[in-house]
């Protein structure tokens, strides 16, 4: 009997270890061309806190250089961004972030207000798989799941990704336990240039009113920030496509003034910011490249300092060494990307 108990324990341990290893191996690593799925989990490696937290989709993680904010103003910031991040995902990411730190300012990009329902599983995965388990993650999954998804696939991702055994590459083994750093405090860097082109004419909509579900989460976000004495800033990134309708702009303006929030639509401020969309974008005007993101950071950082009097941490020993390393990595990546472009 004793032998059977020992054997059973060892076999169960083998089973758990085997499934765990298989899960690690089979989960997408997002280390190739699509790195967006690796962003959310990078936050947990942070060793210092941040005065500013950005939340939102690609219009934040590609448009603000956190390292430039540090270099110019000594602002500590982090972008908790992910691809097509929906507003409930932004809310729960913020809720989770507040368990780790309490920033002075939260900046939310309002483009995702246009989505009132869960969209695509692939984007859900890129936001949710990287989150650590907490009540926020559970609520986030429940709010985000499309009809075909099931909760258990999030609990045991191997049930979702098991069929990837057909497409395993060397990278899956290489990054099985440790991944490369893909962002700079959440900023996704691109140095290449592709000038802005012509955008298609905006399609008229049947109804311009934001959905109740989206607005409910904006209310929750506002309350969460107020309850924690955090300044919530609503922004619309300066990129003109996807189209940001005037009716939408008006609704956000009204909401901000009703709730005592600041809302900045940066589309009309392109010139003031100094953006030149013939050189400051890498994908024909959808997102900013390094040059554009640094200009945005110089402009917005000044506004943050002027408005909220954010402290300059550049001489604070708590941060200097950490940010020295971050700057080094930032510059190294610039060099690498430029070299790749030349090749």
């Amino acid at each position, binding site marked *: 009997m004793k032998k059977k108990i020992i054997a059973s324990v060892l*076999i169960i341990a083998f089973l758990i270890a085997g499934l765990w290893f298989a899960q690690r191996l089979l989960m997408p690593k997002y280390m190739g061309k699509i790195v967006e799925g690796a962003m959310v989990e990078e936050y947990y490696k942070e060793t210092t806190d941040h005065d500013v937290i950005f939340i939102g989709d690609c219009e934040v993680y590609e448009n603000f250089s956190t390292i430039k904010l540090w270099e110019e103003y000594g602002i500590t910031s982090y972008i908790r961004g992910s691809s097509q991040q929906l507003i409930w995902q932004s809310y729960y990411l913020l809720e989770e972030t507040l368990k780790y730190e309490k920033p002075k300012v939260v900046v939310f990009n309002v483009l995702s207000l246009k989505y009132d329902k869960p969209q695509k599983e692939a984007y859900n995965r890129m936001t949710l798989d990287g989150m650590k388990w907490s009540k926020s993650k559970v609520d986030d999954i429940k709010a985000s799941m499309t009809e075909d998804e099931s909760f258990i696939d999030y609990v045991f991702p*191997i049930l979702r990704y*098991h069929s990837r055994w057909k497409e395993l590459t060397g990278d899956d083994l290489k990054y099985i336990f440790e991944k490369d750093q893909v962002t700079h405090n959440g900023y996704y860097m691109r140095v290449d240039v592709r000038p802005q082109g012509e955008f298609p004419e905006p399609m008229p909509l049947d109804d311009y009113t934001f959905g109740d579900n989206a607005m409910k989460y904006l209310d929750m976000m506002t309350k969460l920030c107020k309850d924690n004495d955090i300044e919530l800033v609503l922004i619309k990134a300066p990129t003109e496509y996807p189209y940001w309708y005037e009716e939408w702009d008006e609704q956000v303006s009204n909401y901000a003034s009703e709730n005592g929030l600041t809302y900045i639509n940066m589309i009309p401020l392109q010139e003031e910011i100094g953006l030149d969309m013939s050189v400051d974008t890498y994908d024909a005007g959808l997102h900013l490249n390094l040059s554009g993101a640094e200009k945005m950071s110089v402009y917005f950082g000044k506004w943050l300092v002027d408005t909220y009097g954010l402290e300059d941490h550049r001489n604070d020993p708590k941060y200097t060494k950490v940010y020295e390393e971050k700057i080094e990595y930032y510059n190294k990546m610039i060099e690498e990307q430029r070299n790749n472009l030349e090749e």
Partner: protein
Amino acid sequence: MIFTSAQFIISVIVLAVLYYIVPKKAQWPLLLVASIGFYYVADRKYTDLRHDHSCPHLIFILVTFIVAFLTAYLIGRIDQKTKAYLSASKETISKEEKKAYKAKAKSKKWAVLLVGLIIALGLLCVTKYTNFVISNINSFLKEGSKIRHFDIVIPAAISYYTFQTCSYVIDVYRGKTEPQKNPFKLLLFVSFFPLMVQGPICRYDDLAPTLFGEHKLLETNISKGLTRVIWGYFKKMVVANRIAPAVIALSTDTDTYKGTFVFVAMLFYAFDLYCDFTGGIDITIGIAKVLGIDVAENFNLPYFSKNIKEYWNRWHITMGTWFTDYIFYPVSVCGPMLKLSKWSREHLGQKIGKRVTVYLASLLVWFTTGLWHGAAWNFIVWGLMNYVVIMISQELEPLYAKFHSKVKIKNTVGYGIFEIIRTVLLMSMIRMFDVYRNVPLTFKMVGTMFTNINLKIFADGSLLNIGLGKHDYIVLAAAFVIILTVSIIKAKKGVVFKDSNFAVRHFLLALLLIVIVVFGAYGEGYDATQFIYNQF
């Protein structure tokens, strides 16, 4: 809720834990609650899909149960009264009076049984066959005078629980089984959830002792049960779910996939159905075993059969024995058949005469077997084809014997393998009626298999366009080798593992579980997860 859904697996784990926590007397009531819950959830999902909440299917199973309970109860009462009367009047009535009283009681019992069977089988027939009958009548009617089809959905598992219930009331009528006095116990027998997906069709006397018994948590039950469950999931999820889309592709585009493709479809479907059906039954038997309940075996290595008769003794055993016990034998010995037998022996001679009733009863068995599988001509023709092949091979037996008396190969390994392959191919070919679901099309497509031979398809990549990639073929080939190896060991030794191999057996099971999780065809991108026999 099917066996492969996460909801089902989690529910069964929770149930098994509760089963051994609750007082032993509460074990069978817990199973009853779980069974009704299972049916209710399956029912809800089904009606949700159809957006039709008008008639919950649970009602059908409850009606069948009530009919079975009342029928058995009334038959039991008649038996009791008869016994009481006969023992009280032992001394006072004559032998003839006794005989007359018994005959009267028997006819009363027969009337009760008949009413019970008509209602139970009537429910099955009305729900399953009404539209089939209407379609056939309509084929003779002109446009405008055609009868409208009924909006009926076949209640889930009705073929299984109706047959199970019928066997119970017939056994009570035959005096083989005591009527169950506790209605809730009978309801559990009718609705026991692992049997609700695809059988097996259990007999009351076989199932009742362990179904209503009190069970201690025994390592041997858990171990044997889990072994069957995991082996079943391996066959279902790694093989059947993977190969099913290819069978669908091959049988849908009949313009492209003819000739040798039909041969491929035939082999694929043979592998698919075997893994799907035996896998599902393994899961059923395994779950029951974990709960300490013994469910009848439904398969005995059917693909190792050397002839079709043997095959049908090894495949879907509980259905075969049901038809034998409740149709073949009663029909063979009923009054008109005995008269016919006598007449045919007198007029056609002993040799032919004795065959007439057997052939007629067999014809009825195979016709109903086909009809039981589905309300469509392809199933009926499939049943009749089995009948024809069995009868021909039976008639050819003297010829075989003559051949084997001259050519001494019968006991060689090579001839044994030839017989096995011949049986598998013949059964697989008959099964093509199930694949194409259209009688003329099946004949046409099977015909192209012989007239349109194109071996290039095995080399030109055509077989990579039917929903299976190179990796899938590797997995299927590996699974085939594993299943064949296990089957050969079982055929030679009777068991795959000896009880003493505890560590090895469980280590391999753990490994198999990992294989299922990784290589199983389920989740995103896989739709073909429904059990094939679930539809019957």
